[in-house]
């Protein structure tokens, strides 16, 4: 299979998605700044602000998928895009770059801020592996939702996946909390990256990449948008 990507249109589609998402990004940035403004004030504030940051991550991910993928179909933007000289793969790549930048940049900033807080404050550095694994869990959830959205493009299914993955948050926390190799050093002064922590993180990253590849593969098999 050899396809030439229409880079010009891909660029325009990316810019369109960025433009359409400006407002919600602004809203979530405000939430993240608010959380960061009191996260360093103490242990209780750290946990409250962490919850707010998690809400920002979940909200940002789900909201932009709803705008860029679901609404595109509902509001008849997709028929317009179908009239452009692009293939389903062009479309998928445009969506991939637009969505990933919209999510990965804020996600990276939030993770880096969390790490900076853990390293520079009295809070135990032992929380670092737990925090990174936990934040990566939301990254994986986002990638799965995106992949399902791209592959199926059905509002009901995507909403179901969003709800289902969010329901997994508590079980994931529970399982992580019952994993001695991750939890034993959580109050420690130094971050301890043992083989269990590294394995969990690796599995998360592999799953994330795998679902993206599957979604792109399914797109390459599509001859038309319908």
């Amino acid at each position, binding site marked *: 299979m050899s396809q030439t990507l229409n880079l010009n249109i891909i660029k325009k589609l990316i810019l369109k998605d960025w433009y359409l998402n400006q*407002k919600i990004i602004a809203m979530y940035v405000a939430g993240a*700044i608010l959380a*960061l403004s009191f*996260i360093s004030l103490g242990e209780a504030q750290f946990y409250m602000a962490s919850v707010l940051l998690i809400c920002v991550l979940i909200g940002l991910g789900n909201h932009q998928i709803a705008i860029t993928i679901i609404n595109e179909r509902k509001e008849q933007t997709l028929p317009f895009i179908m009239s452009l000289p692009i293939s389903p793969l062009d479309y998928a790549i445009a969506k991939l770059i637009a969505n990933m930048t919209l999510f990965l940049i804020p996600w990276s900033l939030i993770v880096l801020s969390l790490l900076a807080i853990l390293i520079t*404050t009295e809070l135990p550095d032992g929380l670092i592996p737990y925090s990174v694994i936990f934040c990566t869990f939301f990254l994986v959830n986002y990638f799965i939702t995106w992949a399902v959205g791209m592959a199926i493009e059905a509002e009901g299914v995507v909403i179901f996946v969003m709800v289902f993955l969010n329901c997994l948050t508590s079980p994931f926390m529970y399982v992580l909390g019952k994993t001695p190799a991750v939890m034993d050093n959580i109050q420690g002064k130094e971050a301890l990256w043992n083989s269990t922590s590294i394995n969990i993180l690796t599995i998360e990253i592999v799953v994330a990449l795998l679902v993206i590849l599957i979604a792109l593969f399914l797109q390459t098999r599509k001859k038309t948008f319908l």
Partner: protein
Amino acid sequence: MNSTAESRLYYFDNLRAFAMIAGVFFHAALAYSPMSHGIWFTSDAEQSVVVDWISWFTHLFRMPLFFVIAGFFVAYLVINRGMGNMLWNRCKRIVFPFIIFWPLCMWAIVAGMVWAATHVEQKSPLLQMIAYAMANPGTPPPPPTTMHLWFLYNLMFFCLFTWILGYINFNWIKQKISQLHPIVLLILFPLLLTPALTQVAAPIPAPESFFPQLWSFGFFGLFFAAGYFIYQQENFLDKFKNYSLFLLIGSIGIYVFYFSLLPEAFSFIPAADSFAKKLLLGSLEAIIACWMTLFCVVTGKKCLNFRNRFLRFLSDSSYWIYIVHLPIIFAVQYKLMDSDFSLITKYSLSVTITLAIAIVSYLILVRWTPIGWLLNGRKK
């Protein structure tokens, strides 16, 4: 006020230069302040309460004035070039300089501090602590701060807020504010500032942490918003023309009372004041900050609204001077700490040498180079 993009408002340019260069005078003065003796690197054996009287007064409105001006120019950019261009422009002028100069300033200040801890004979209390920490390895270093570049760091957030709040229609608030009587505004604005100031010890500290500070948003952020508003309201400042003298005399009168409430010496862990005292100090600071900032802007419009080559040069160089001044001041004052000069001589020398080095380095390294393009844009 927003009718012609070309009409450069010289008094805001000139005021910005004065506000930034006033920072050099303020930071140089702290070495001779009895109040900050325990918390400043270059605290000298010679001190004078006069230094405290003057420097803490200017401290209350120097940075608020700067943020009003910053808000004014951000409004200019948004209205004339659009939100996206404003963000990109501020990225070039604020974010990149911060990323480039923060590590350099940090290195220069730490290097000077380490040198002073081992070479200065008459060490300040803070230098003594550092010398002790150096002699006893294992003491955890304090978390890094944004230092004197905190204003750049805070400005980044204010520009982000400009974008975020740009989606909300504030026209009805603007209309209401513009209809208010000046006296009402002179009471209302300090009231809005007071809650933020009750969260921190007096005098207003620098929000230099890398973690965003809510109180800073509620204090400096409101001055920034005021500047943004002033740009959009033509003739708004003229309302206060007849109140200039009242603003100045009133502020000085309130400052006398405020100063009497300040502790004799500041410490890194401020005394736990009662809420009533915090409220009183916060409201007095808010009134002085608001009234004196307004006085400066109104007086600046009256007296500094002209083009002058010297002021233009000062305005162009002020950003660079502000960025580099603190490591230079420290270096000069470390050398002066063991000298027998009088306080006046030491102070004059530290200010003069700092300004001389900063201006010469501006001429050689900045004005016609990519650093100058970064800080002030390309010269036409």
